[in-house]
Structure formats: C-alpha cells, structure tokens
C-alpha cells in the first residue's frame, strides 16, 4: 500500500476539529475542508445511522440570510421551486440555476417570516453562490453570508427523536418533515429542523458558533445512554448515495441541468419567472440528451466518479458517484447516460482500471426506509 502523500496545509478545519481529534477520528480532504472521514469504521457508522442514531458535524455548510420587504419575491426569482409552498417555519429543497439551465447549487430555503429567509448552501459553493446571488440581487433586501457564525450538527437515525427530546424541553409534535422551530436554549438561539441527508428520520441544529462545542459535548452526554455515536463524512456519503440524494460537484454541476439530474419535480413551471426558466422550458420541449441513472454492479469492484459507461465498446456515459452499499451489500452508483440507454433493467459495462465490468440500471433510491414503526429487513 502506497504511503499517503496528501497535502493538507491548504485545507480548512472544522470549528470542532479538536473534538474530532479527541474522539480518534481519521481525517481526510472533502473539497477544501479537512474533515473526519470516520471514527471507528465507515460501515459501522453507516449501520449506526440506519438502526440507531448518529451525530455529524456539518458546520462546513453555508448559511445566507435574505431579509427585507422584497426578500420573498427575490428568493422566488433565484430558486426553481416555489416559495408559495413555504410558510413561517417551513423548509423547501430547490436547485438554483444559471440562465442556461446549468445547476449553480442545490439549497434548502427556510422561511422565518415573510421578510426573512435562511438559505443553506453546499460548503464547496459558499463563495460562488454568494457572488451569484449578490449579482442577481434586486429590490429592498439585505443579503448576508453568516456561514462563519453558524455551526450545524445533524442528528440522524431512528432514535434521533429520543436524543432531541432528552436535549431540549420542547414539544416535537409541533415539528414535521421539512419544518423547523427557532427557540432560545442554554446554547443561545437555535434553529431545529427536521431535515437531513441520510434517508432516515433526523434533525439538524443550527447553533451560534461560539456555543457549538458546548452543544456537541452536551449531545454526546445525553446521547450516550441512547447509543448516539459520532459519524464521519465517509458514512455521510454512503448513506446519502443509498437514498439517492445528489452530491453537488459530482452528480450535478454547472454543466448539468435539473431535468437531466431527475430533479424536474422541484421545478415550479407555472411561476411567472425564475433564473433559467427559458432554457429549462426549451430543454423540456426538446427532450433531454442524458439522464442520471442508478446502477448496481453485477461483477466485483467499485465504480467510482469518472469511470466510463460503455455499451458494445462505445462510451455512452460517465459515473458520478459510486460506493459499496453497506445496507444492500452491493456495489452501487449513479451515472449520466445518453437517454436512449436508460431503461430500468438495461445491462451496461463500466470501465474500472482498464477492465470492463457488468452493471445493471436499477430503480432508485437504492434504499428506502419503510416507516418509523415498521422495522425494515436487510433485503
């Protein structure tokens, strides 16, 4: 095995880096961040989230505030989804597009009140998104990048509700999927949302950066009897991929469109206007050229980002994400494939290290939780 040669001097550390070190985390690069990849094992941590409860430090994520009389209208111009679906305390997933339909980022928009919105963006895109929104700003709004002031912890898994209940004295019945509450706690003013990136029931806590370490320590303490464990970025990737949550920079980029990525359901076509509407309407009429598909490898190996997809020796696509699914015990992945060859059940070839292996196009998500009361088997 070659010795690692990774240069980490330019990478940013998470605010809780010392806590992760103390827990014995193995670190690695994720974009421009130096993050905990795992504490014990990716597979163990993956299973913790599927069957118990885990906590992720995702403070690298970005948070923007849009405030003012015209905030609602402006946010609606920026995103593809419709803010009309929002009300105070609700959250909405949406891509943000360029005029040509290419995806700038995928974000979660949270409405505090009709004149105050929080936009949660991907860490790798904080600067790009800020510039993008800034240059497409109009009307009476104040636009602020609060990414350095807000820490974010995700508590995910079937036992996450129990952890949140022992942490805060609040009625969780007032919360539901893609909704949030804002309240004052011993850790300052927090936002608690029922959101996540794992496919399990779960919550995310937005916390003032100066109180984040105290919140983390308290969480570990109250979570211990419930079996709460820290989970690294390795399992975050396997969990999100099983649930077919897309990763920006891999499964979608400035060069792919929401229609190609299978995010058509987020587009509010009847909105009077949003950035990219013209190009996307045109693409919908004309038909897409490539589509993001899910595949399972029939042979051994892992097809990773960048592997070519072939049919009869001719390239028909490219893998954007691939891993070993700890739940299915199979090798899975996502790939962009020319639209003519995207039928479910279709056999494709994938080139891994100059060797061709067989794979099959399958329905996604690869994993879906049945419900919080019915225990899912490992089929």
């Amino acid at each position, binding site marked *: *095995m*070659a*010795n*690692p040669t990774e240069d980490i001097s330019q990478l940013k550390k998470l605010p809780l880096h010392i806590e992760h070190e103390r827990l014995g985390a*193995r670190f*690695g690069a994720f974009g421009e961040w130096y993050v905990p*990849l*795992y504490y014990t*094992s*990716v*597979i163990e941590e993956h299973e913790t989230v599927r069957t118990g409860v885990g906590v992720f430090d995702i403070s690298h994520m970005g948070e923007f505030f849009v405030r003012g009389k015209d905030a609602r209208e402006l946010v609606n111009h920026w995103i593809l989804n419709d803010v009309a679906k929002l009300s105070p305390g609700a959250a909405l997933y949406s891509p943000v597009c360029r005029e040509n339909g290419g995806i700038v980022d995928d974000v979660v928009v949270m409405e505090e009140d009709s004149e105050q919105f929080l936009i949660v963006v991907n860490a790798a895109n904080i600067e790009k998104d800020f510039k993008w929104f800034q240059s497409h700003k109009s009307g009476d709004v104040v636009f602020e990048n609060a990414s350095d002031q807000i820490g974010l912890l995700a508590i995910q898994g079937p036992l996450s509700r129990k952890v949140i209940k022992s942490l805060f004295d609040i009625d969780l019945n007032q919360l539901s999927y893609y909704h949030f509450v804002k309240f004052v706690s011993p850790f300052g003013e927090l936002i608690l949302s029922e959101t996540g990136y794992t496919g399990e029931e779960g919550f995310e806590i937005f916390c003032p950066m100066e109180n984040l370490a105290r919140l983390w320590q308290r969480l570990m303490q109250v979570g211990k009897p419930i079996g709460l464990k820290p989970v690294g970025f*390795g399992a975050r990737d*396997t969990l999100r991929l099983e649930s077919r949550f897309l990763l920006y920079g891999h499964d979608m980029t400035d060069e792919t469109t929401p229609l190609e990525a299978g995010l058509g359901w987020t587009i509010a076509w009847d909105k009077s206007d949003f950035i990219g509407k013209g190009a996307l309407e045109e693409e919908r009429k004309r038909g897409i050229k490539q589509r993001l598909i899910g595949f399972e490898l029939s042979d*051994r*190996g*892992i097809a*990773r980002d960048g592997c070519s997809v072939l049919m009869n020796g001719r390239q028909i696509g490219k893998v954007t994400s691939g*891993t*070993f699914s*700890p739940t299915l015990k199979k*090798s899975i992945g996502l790939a962009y494939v020319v639209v003519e060859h995207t039928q479910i059940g279709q056999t494709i070839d994938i080139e891994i*290290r100059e060797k061709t292996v067989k794979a099959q196009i399958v329905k996604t998500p690869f994993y879906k939780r049945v419900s919080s009361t019915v225990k899912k088997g490992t089929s």
Partner: protein
Amino acid sequence: MNLPSELRYTKTHEWVRKTGDKLVVGITDYAQHEISDVVFVELPHVGQQAEQGKAISIVESVKAAFDIYSPVSGTVKAINTMLESDPATVNQDSYGKGWFFELTPTKLSEWDNLLTKDQYEQVIRQAAAG
C-alpha cells in the same frame, strides 16, 4: 502495533512469511487499519509473474482503492480465494486468515533484503510523525 517478529516487511506495508522455499504475502495491521473496511480484494492469478515493487493486487475500501505491491519477484503459486467472498477477513486477521498469495521467489536471497520488525517499526513511526 501488532508486528510478529518472525515476519519480514516492506516500506509499503506488506508482510512476508517464509515457509520452506515459498513466501506468503499479506498486508500489515497498520495497512488494514489505514485502509479500513475492506470490501473487495482483487488477487493475482496462480502462475502470474510477480515483480518486486510492482502492483500485484488491489484492495478496495468504501473510501478508495489501494495497490498492493509484491515484496519480491517470483511466481504466484497460490491465492487466498476466501478474500473474494469474505474481504473483511483482511481487517479481522491480517497476519493469519487474511493472507493474500503465496509465491516461489526467483531468488530466495531477496528475503534477506526485506525489513525486519524493528526496521518496519521505524517506517511506521515516521509515517505517523509525517
């Protein structure tokens, strides 16, 4: 760190055991720990010519693929097919059931050029400090 003293080692974290005129090869406890969660092992073929320092096997973990280098030159005589059906054996028993392949070295004297336990321990200490 678990380092059996009867074995010889490489800078690239393979171990070698001498059994008669054959050498058995695997990866060290340090390597399996670095790689973590082994999910696939690609072994050489029986009869394949191994070249010292050249990649001869691949280990895939959830996070990445790692090349395994042949500690000596020779002919592969046996492979541990158990790793194909149960790759996690590499993590559980890296010096025992997790062996990779057995070969007949071109020159048995190459064994003498491999690292001893103490020399390999230095390598790991440097890697950890690195």
